C-alpha cells in the first residue's frame, strides 16, 4: 500500500461575513483584549454551519469545520459538493493561498495548484515570455521550464503566436497556452479546480487525458474539484463529498457519486394525491410519482444519457373504469413544455381492478440538458378526462453525465433544452 502524502487534521476555516469596517475593528480589539488576558478567541466559539440559503444572526461562519482525511500517493481524489460546500476553500488552504483557522495540514512533497488557468499572465508580454513567467509563478525554475519548453509549446498548439502579446490571443488560445504550462509542472501533488470547464471539447479531452497520465504514469497525486460528474467519474479513483463545510462521505468514487446524487434530492414536492386544484371525473387520480434510474434505484437526480423510469401510482375510486390512457408532459425551468406523451399514442391502455394502479414508463437515454424539470400529468378513462392536476405531480433534476462518452461537458447553457449525439462519418 502506498504512502500517505497529504494529511488533513482537524482543519477548520472561519470567515467573517459582511463588510470590513468599524464593526470588524471592534471585533479585532475584543479579540486582542482576550488574547492579552490569556483567554481563547471569543469568536471561535460562535459561527454556524455554512448553509448558504439560511439567513443567520451571526457574522461568523465556518466555511470548513473539523476536516480529517488522508490522501495516498498516486490517488486521484475527486472533490464534489454543492456550491458553498467548502470545496474551493479547501483547495485554497491546501495550496497555501490562505491559512486554516485551526488544525494542520501535513504534506509530503511539492504541491502545485491550478485554481485558475493563466494566473499571472501579463497581457503585454508575448506567449513565450508568459510561459516562463507563468511557469515560475507556479513554482518551476527557469531551467525546468527551458527543458520542457518544446513540450509545452507542442501541447499548447499555439506555436505560431509565441511572439505575439497574449492580449491579442483568442480566449481559447490563452487557455491552451496556460494549461500547457500548468500541465508540465512536476509536483508530487497537483491541485486542480474546475479549470477544465473552459476551452473546446478537443482541448478538454486533451486536458483530461493529461491529468490521467499525470497520475497513472508518473504516480503523482491529484486533487480535483469539478461540477462535471462525467469527468470526475472518468478521472478519479476516490471521491470526497462535502456538505456545509464538512465531509459527508469519502471512499470509492462510484459510491460517493451515488451518495451525492441522493443528497441532491432536496426539492420539496407535494405528493400528487394532495393537490387540491384538479379537474376531471376523479374516477382515477394521480396519487404519487417517483423516478428511478436503472443504475441506482429511486432518485430525483438523473445523469444525462441514463435511462429514467417514471413510476406512477394511481388511486382508483371507481373500479369499473376501463381503457385508462395516462399522459404526462415535461417542462423545464423556463416553462417550456418539452414533450407530451400519452400511453394511448403507443396503443397502451390500462384497466383498473385494484385500489392502486402502478404504471411504469421508461424513457431511454435521457437527452434533456442539465437543469430541473417538472412533470404535469393527465388521465383519460374511456375517452373522458378523469384527472388533471393543475400543479406539477413530480420534479426531477438532470445533471451532466458522460453523455458523449468522452468526458466532455458539451455546450453548456440552460437555454439549450436537448442534447443530441450524432454518428459522424
Amino acid at each position, binding site marked *: 500500500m502506498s504512502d500517505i502524502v497529504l494529511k488533513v487534521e482537524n482543519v477548520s476555516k472561519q470567515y467573517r461575513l459582511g463588510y470590513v469596517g468599524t464593526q470588524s475593528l471592534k471585533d479585532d480589539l475584543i479579540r486582542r483584549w482576550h488574547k492579552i488576558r490569556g483567554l481563547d478567541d471569543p469568536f471561535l466559539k460562535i459561527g454556524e454551519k455554512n448553509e448558504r440559503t439560511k439567513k443567520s444572526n451571526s457574522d461568523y461562519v465556518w466555511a470548513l469545520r473539523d476536516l480529517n482525511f488522508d490522501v495516498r500517493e498516486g490517488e486521484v481524489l475527486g472533490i464534489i459538493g454543492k456550491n458553498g460546500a467548502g470545496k474551493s476553500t479547501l483547495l485554497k488552504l491546501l495550496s497555501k493561498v*490562505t491559512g486554516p483557522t485551526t488544525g494542520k495540514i501535513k504534506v509530503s512533497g511539492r504541491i502545485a495548484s491550478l*485554481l485558475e488557468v493563466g494566473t499571472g499572465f501579463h497581457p503585454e508580454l508575448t506567449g513565450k515570455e508568459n510561459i516562463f513567467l507563468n511557469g515560475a*509563478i507556479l513554482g518551476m525554475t527557469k531551467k525546468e521550464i527551458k527543458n520542457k519548453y518544446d513540450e509545452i509549446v507542442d501541447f499548447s498548439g499555439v506555436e505560431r503566436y509565441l511572439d505575439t502579446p497574449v492580449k491579442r490571443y483568442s480566449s481559447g488560445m490563452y487557455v491552451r497556452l496556460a494549461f500547457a504550462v500548468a500541465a508540465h509542472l512536476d509536483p508530487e501533488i497537483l491541485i486542480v479546480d474546475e479549470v477544465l470547464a473552459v476551452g473546446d471539447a478537443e482541448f478538454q479531452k486533451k486536458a483530461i487525458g493529461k491529468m490521467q497520465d499525470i497520475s497513472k504514469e508518473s504516480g503523482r497525486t491529484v486533487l480535483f474539484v469539478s461540477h462535471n460528474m462525467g469527468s470526475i467519474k472518468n478521472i478519479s479513483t476516490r471521491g470526497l463529498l462535502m456538505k456545509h463545510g464538512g465531509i459527508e462521505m469519502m471512499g470509492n468514487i462510484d459510491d460517493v457519486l451515488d451518495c451525492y446524487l441522493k443528497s441532491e434530492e432536496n426539492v420539496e414536492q407535494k405528493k400528487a394525491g394532495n393537490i387540491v386544484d384538479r379537474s376531471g371525473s376523479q374516477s382515477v387520480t394521480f396519487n404519487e410519482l417517483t423516478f428511478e434510474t436503472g443504475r441506482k434505484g429511486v432518485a430525483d437526480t438523473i445523469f444525462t444519457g441514463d435511462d429514467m423510469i417514471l413510476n406512477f401510482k394511481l388511486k382508483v375510486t371507481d373500479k369499473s373504469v376501463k381503457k385508462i390512457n395516462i399522459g404526462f408532459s415535461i417542462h423545464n425551468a423556463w416553462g417550456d413544455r418539452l414533450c407530451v406523451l400519452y400511453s394511448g399514442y403507443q396503443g397502451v391502455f390500462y384497466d383498473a381492478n385494484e385500489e392502486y394502479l402502478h404504471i411504469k414508463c421508461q424513457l431511454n437515454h435521457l437527452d434533456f440538458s442539465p437543469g430541473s424539470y417538472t412533470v404535469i400529468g393527465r388521465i383519460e378513462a374511456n375517452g373522458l378526462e378523469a384527472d388533471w392536476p393543475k400543479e406539477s405531480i413530480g420534479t426531477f433534476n438532470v445533471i451532466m453525465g458522460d453523455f458523449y462518452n468522452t468526458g466532455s461537458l458539451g455546450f453548456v447553457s440552460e437555454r439549450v433544452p436537448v442534447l443530441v449525439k450524432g454518428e459522424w462519418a
Partner: protein
Amino acid sequence: MNMNTTQKLEELSSLALEKEKEEWTEVIKPKVGWFELNLIEIWNYRDLLMLFVRRDFVSIYKQSILGPVWFFIQPLLATFAFTILFGRIAEMSTDGLPLILFYMSGITLWNYFQDCFTKTSNTFTSNASIFGKVYFPRVIVPLSVVISNLIKFGLQFIFLLLFWLYFFKIDGAQIFMRKEILLFPFLVVLMAGMGLGLGMIISSLTTKYRDFQYMLTFGVQLLMYGSPVIYPVSSLPEEYKYFILANPMTGVIEAFRYGLLGTGSYESGYLIYSFVFTVVVLFLGLLVFNRVQKNFMDTV
C-alpha cells in the same frame, strides 16, 4: 457490511503507516510565528524574482513611442520646474551649487526612495488576484519592485553624471567629487531598505483597513518637502533643523551631494541615524509582512 470492514482496515493501516512516517516536507498551520522567515524558500524562487523584474521593466513602456526615454524625461522636467520655481523665483539657496545639478541630484535620489516606498505599499491589494490563486513567497513581489526600480535609478544616475560632466568640464562650475562618493552603494542600499521596509509595513496594514493607503499618497509628497531635495540643510534656521534631520532621507541626500558635488552638510552621525532607522524599519516590515501574508486573502 463488507464496505465498512474494508474502510476500517484502511483506517487501521493508515494509522500504522502514520507511525512509521512522521517526516513531512511541510506542515500548513493556522499562523506563522513572528520569526519564521523561510529564506531558503525565497532563494528557490529567485528565478521568479528576476522574471518579475523583467516583466515590470518590459511592460511599463510597451506601446509607448518614447519607451525608456520616459525614464529621463521625468527627472528632467521636474528639475526644470524646480530650477525655475525654487531657484529663480523663490531664490532659495543651493549652497552655491549649479541649480540644475543641485535639484537633479535630489530628485533622482528621492524618486528612487519614493518608488520603492509607494510601489511596495500596495503589494497585497494590487496583487490580490494572483495571490488569491497561487502560492509563492509574497515577499518576492516587493523585492522585484525594488530591483526593477534600481535599474531605472541606475539609468537616471548615469544621466545625472552626464550633466555633472558638462558642468565640470565645459561650464567650469565649482564642483568636485570627494572620497565620500564611495559611500554611494551604501546610500542606495539604505534608500532601498527604507522604501521596502516602510512599504511592507504599509501594505500589511492596508490589507484590512485601507485608510493608510489614502494617507500615503500625499504623505510621501509632504515628506519630500521635509527633506533637503529643494534646499540644503545649511540654509535652515536652527529651530527647524531638527525636524528636517529627523527625516532619515536627509542624511542620505546630504551625503550624496557632499560626495558628488563637494558641498553639503555631511556628518557620519546623520548616516548612522539613517542606517539604524533602515535596519529597524526593514526588520519590522519583514516581520509584519511575513505574518500578514498567510491570511490576508480573507480580508483584502
